[in-house]
């Protein structure tokens, strides 16, 4: 098997090298990829959308359909992961660990045993528990707001600098996942519940598709943000710019929620009880 695989890969590589001999050289300005449709995007982006970052304007306006279905793909991935892994029926674990905060004594409560009340004296800990590291916890908690502010900046500033909904959404998700890693999964679930993550991922897709449908209702084509002018009253060009921002916010919400949903399900094998 190894030999056959090696030969197949080698043949494929030879074919690609042969094909690469016809490709344009490194940094060739007159290569076919850069001569047909992309000059149009570069030259008209300011005139049509007033968005200096061409990547953003192409992503959300010129190729809006593509990005809408991309967001739907993300949403579908989150749903698929949920349906594959989530254990809906709650099975009682064999034993649970509770730690008395004041003394540090850990109780192991066997199946069917009496679980301590929800008081502040005891805290639930993972069965594969490593002692909390105070430095890591405090520094992660201090980092989280900074990460979130940076994520909002990346989403909001996608018009003028590299950034946008996808990148900002992933950074937002990273802040919640950092909580889940440095504390435990249940602390992250307290901040953002599974219900909220599922709801927000649907909301994000809805904002995107809803903006398109709103344009349709206002008498223009689907996802033609110029129609939003009659609501925003800022001119056709600026209406496209604002439409792109609305859509990017939707993408950011959807990406954040789906990333968190994927993490919750993958790290705890769908039980969402004890995890990384």
């Amino acid at each position, binding site marked *: 098997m190894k030999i056959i695989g090696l030969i197949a890969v080698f043949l494929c590589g030879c074919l690609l090298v042969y094909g690469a001999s016809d490709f344009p050289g490194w940094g060739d300005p007159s290569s076919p990829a850069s001569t047909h449709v992309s000059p149009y995007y570069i030259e008209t982006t300011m005139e049509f959308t007033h968005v200096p970052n061409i*990547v953003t304007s192409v992503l959300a306006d010129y190729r809006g359909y593509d990005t809408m279905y991309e967001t739907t793909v993300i949403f579908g991935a989150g749903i698929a992961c949920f349906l594959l892994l989530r254990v809906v029926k709650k099975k009682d674990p064999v034993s649970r660990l509770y730690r008395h905060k004041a003394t540090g004594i850990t109780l192991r409560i066997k199946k069917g045993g009496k679980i301590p009340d929800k008081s502040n004296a005891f805290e639930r800990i993972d069965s594969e528990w490593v002692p909390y590291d105070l430095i890591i916890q405090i520094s992660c908690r201090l980092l989280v707001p900074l990460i979130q502010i940076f994520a909002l900046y990346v989403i909001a500033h996608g018009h003028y600098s590299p950034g946008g909904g996808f990148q900002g959404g992933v950074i937002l998700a990273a802040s919640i996942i950092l909580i889940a890693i440095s504390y435990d999964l249940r602390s992250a679930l307290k901040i953002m519940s599974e219900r909220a993550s599922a709801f927000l991922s649907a909301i994000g897709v809805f904002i995107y598709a809803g903006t398109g449908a709103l344009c349709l209702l206002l008498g223009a084509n689907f996802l033609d943000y110029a129609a939003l002018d009659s609501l925003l009253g800022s001119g056709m060009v600026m209406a496209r710019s604002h439409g792109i921002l609305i859509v990017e916010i939707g993408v950011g919400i959807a990406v954040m929620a789906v990333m968190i949903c994927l993490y919750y399900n993958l790290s705890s094998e769908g039980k969402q009880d004890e995890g990384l």
Partner: protein
Amino acid sequence: MEDVISFVISKYNYWCYIVLLMIGLYAMIVKNNLVKKIIGMNIFQTAIILFYVSISVKKEGTLPTIIIDPVTGTHTARAADYINPLPHVLMLTAIVVSVATLGIALALAIKIYKEYDTLEEDEIFAQIRKK
């Protein structure tokens, strides 16, 4: 001889992507462990992303963000001044798809591990044949 060297140097981006693509393909075909296959798939996708981004480069072109003159507030959008934005857009979405496929693949791997207690392909096949 000089022709060969200049040919190799002028297209080095393609050699990088071909090598990465071969590594990924080899891992997907030959490796026995499912997680290694998933990693191979990710390397494969990264190779394609590298290929697309590298063909967007233009010599003496800058980032695809229109530079606005701070004094006059005007701008000149000449296509030769900016690198091609289209591959960047396409690859932005491809990265997203790769994350989605990675999530699904890992979920399936977890499912398979729960069912068969192993991620080695030959052991899984042996268990399936026994049934």
